[in-house]
């Protein structure tokens, strides 16, 4: 009984970490800029590829993951400068453009690097609890997910960048009039989102097969989390990840992986009917 409960909790934590890590980059770009980045999966893929390449080159894994995240962030900033900032007033066209980028990135990776890449093994060992065995790396991922939310909170509420970025989304013209370079803010925010996607890719790289289409493994979960969460990262993405992780873990342990996914999808379709602006829109409903 106790070990069954622990197994469920572990699965819940695992699902929570996956949802938070894979969605936060998308959520920041959406919440701060109103842009849905359909190339999100490709930033994740980029982070994973760079991480594994760096690890093969001899860097220790944490450093390699940092490299992956950084690479994705730099590419994100470059893309924002080149393409996204021309499309700010056309949200639907931004989706289409990022999808174009996604097609080019996936197929380009396939052409340049081949259909698959040798990975690195999952680090750390596993521990036993009764008859179950659990991976320690998964526990590390859960800790990182929670720590990342804390770090983002500090970043957006305690640093100069965070305050300027929030000012930029609230009243862009006023921020601009007060001397904030809103263009740089947008670029940095997009870069941050891309770097978080790269981080997710780097963190999950040791647990997955590296193929150019690996981004699609993340994309449905991160979309669903962002739609359920709404525009606010802290009051939206985090609680949405808790609720969805519970549903996913429950459905997965009862009926299997696929039904976990179907459960998520049905949840999102029902949630948008009741709370069209997501959990955060509902939580903040009196405040605008």
């Amino acid at each position, binding site marked *: 009984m106790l070990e069954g409960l622990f197994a469920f909790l572990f699965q819940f934590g695992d699902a929570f970490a996956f949802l938070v890590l894979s969605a936060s980059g998308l959520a920041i770009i*959406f919440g701060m800029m*109103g842009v*849905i980045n359909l190339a999100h999966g490709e930033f994740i893929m980029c982070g994973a590829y760079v991480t594994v390449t760096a690890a093969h080159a001899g860097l220790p894994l944490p450093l390699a993951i940092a490299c992956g995240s950084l690479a994705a962030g730099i590419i994100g900033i470059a893309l924002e400068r080149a*393409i996204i900032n*021309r*499309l700010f007033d*056309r*949200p*639907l*066209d931004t*989706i*289409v*453009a990022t*999808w*174009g*980028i*996604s*097609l*080019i990135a*996936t*197929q*380009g990776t*396939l*052409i340049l690097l081949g259909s698959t890449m040798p990975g690195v093994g999952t680090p750390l060992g596993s521990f036993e609890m009764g008859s179950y065995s659990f991976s320690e790396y998964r526990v590390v991922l859960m800790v990182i997910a929670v720590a990342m939310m804390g770090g983002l909170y500090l970043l957006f509420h305690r640093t100069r960048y965070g305050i300027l970025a929030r000012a930029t989304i609230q009243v862009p013209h006023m921020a601009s009039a007060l001397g904030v370079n809103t263009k740089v803010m947008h670029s940095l925010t997009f870069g941050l989102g891309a770097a978080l996607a790269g981080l997710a890719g780097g963190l999950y790289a040791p647990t997955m097969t590296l193929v150019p*289409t690996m981004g*699609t493994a993340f*994309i*449905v979960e991160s*979309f*669903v989390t*962002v*739609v359920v969460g709404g525009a606010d990262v802290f009051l939206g993405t985090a609680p949405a990840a808790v609720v969805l992780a519970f549903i996913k873990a429950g459905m997965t342990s009862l009926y299997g992986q*696929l039904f976990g*996914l*179907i459960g998520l*999808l049905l949840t*999102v*379709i*029902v949630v*948008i*009917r*009741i709370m*069209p602006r997501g959990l955060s829109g509902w939580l903040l409903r009196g405040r605008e």
Partner: protein
Amino acid sequence: MSDLASREGTAGATGRAGGARRRWRPLRTLARLNGPQTLGRGPAFWIGFVVVCALVGIYPLFSDGWTVGNTAYFFTWTFMAMGLCVIWGYAGALSFGQTAFFGLSGYAYGVLTLNFGSAYGFTFGALLIGVAASALLALLLGYFLFYGRISGVFLGIVTLSVTLVFETFMAQTAGPEWTVGSARLNGFNGMTGMPPLTLPWFDGDIVLWPDIPLYYLLMGLVIVCYLGLRIFVNSRFGNVLVAIRENPDRAETLGYDIRRYQLGAFVVGSSLAGLSGVLYTAWGQYITPNSMGLYAAALPIVWVAVGGRSDLTATLVGTLAVLWVFQTLTIYGSQYALVVMGALLLVTVLFAPRGLALGLVDLAGWSWGRLRGRKARNGQGDA
């Protein structure tokens, strides 16, 4: 719609009672072929239209069976493109998941015809049931989406998630337990062996293999759909859709229930995606989960965006052109085709937001206007 029609009717009856100018109802409907929401009107356009139809009609006489079948294959996709054009271009709601309806109807056709065969024209019954299944799913999904009043970008990602989950679901149905009647869903390898569309005829059935008869059937369907949609978007319903696209708040203040109109457009467009799915399945006797995946879902967006989403004619012409270019590319360098597609999408969005076909029309109109302006000025100078 009936409301306005009846008002028009009474106005006509009282205003010019019994006058010769009052038009017969079907004629009034036909008059909607031209209207503010579609490019092309007047004798020049329609003569051109008839000429193009005639050329397309005699084309099989000068070509071989394979090419004709291949052109028929292009035709099967145009319905999904025209449907997306209605949803995205006219109603302003971008759906990324049209392939979910494509797949649903395709699989429905496969399951039905594998179970009940093709006798007595049942394949056409299966076609209708398959399209109805898509309409029903669109109604259900659209109810949650539009009545939840979710914004544009969310609609895109929810519909995309639906089609991706549907793909994942169908991909894992490889086991023998996944059978419906005598039809095996067959997982990632897809379903095969369903009969093509079959017309019952006096001296035995006509089986429509991908060849000249199927070509004519599809050509007829494309023309009927195109003309029908022209009437649809120029009708009162279509005008309200465009008003909603331009300014939802204003349309709502004027008393229109925008949710109902958008849902209507979504159901029409998705049924057309379903029709494409059935025709595709019948054309190749084959459907796989791949046709609902990320790349398949990207294709309709590419066709419609590149062609010009705000006009049916531009979408239709653009779709056929992109399909042809894409196939040519695939023959000469298959792996670069998707890169070119992505680049085409980017270039279109950045430099010709209204679409390449419409961009060309605009450019032609602009240079024609300049030319005439210069002539007029020169004329004045001479005088």
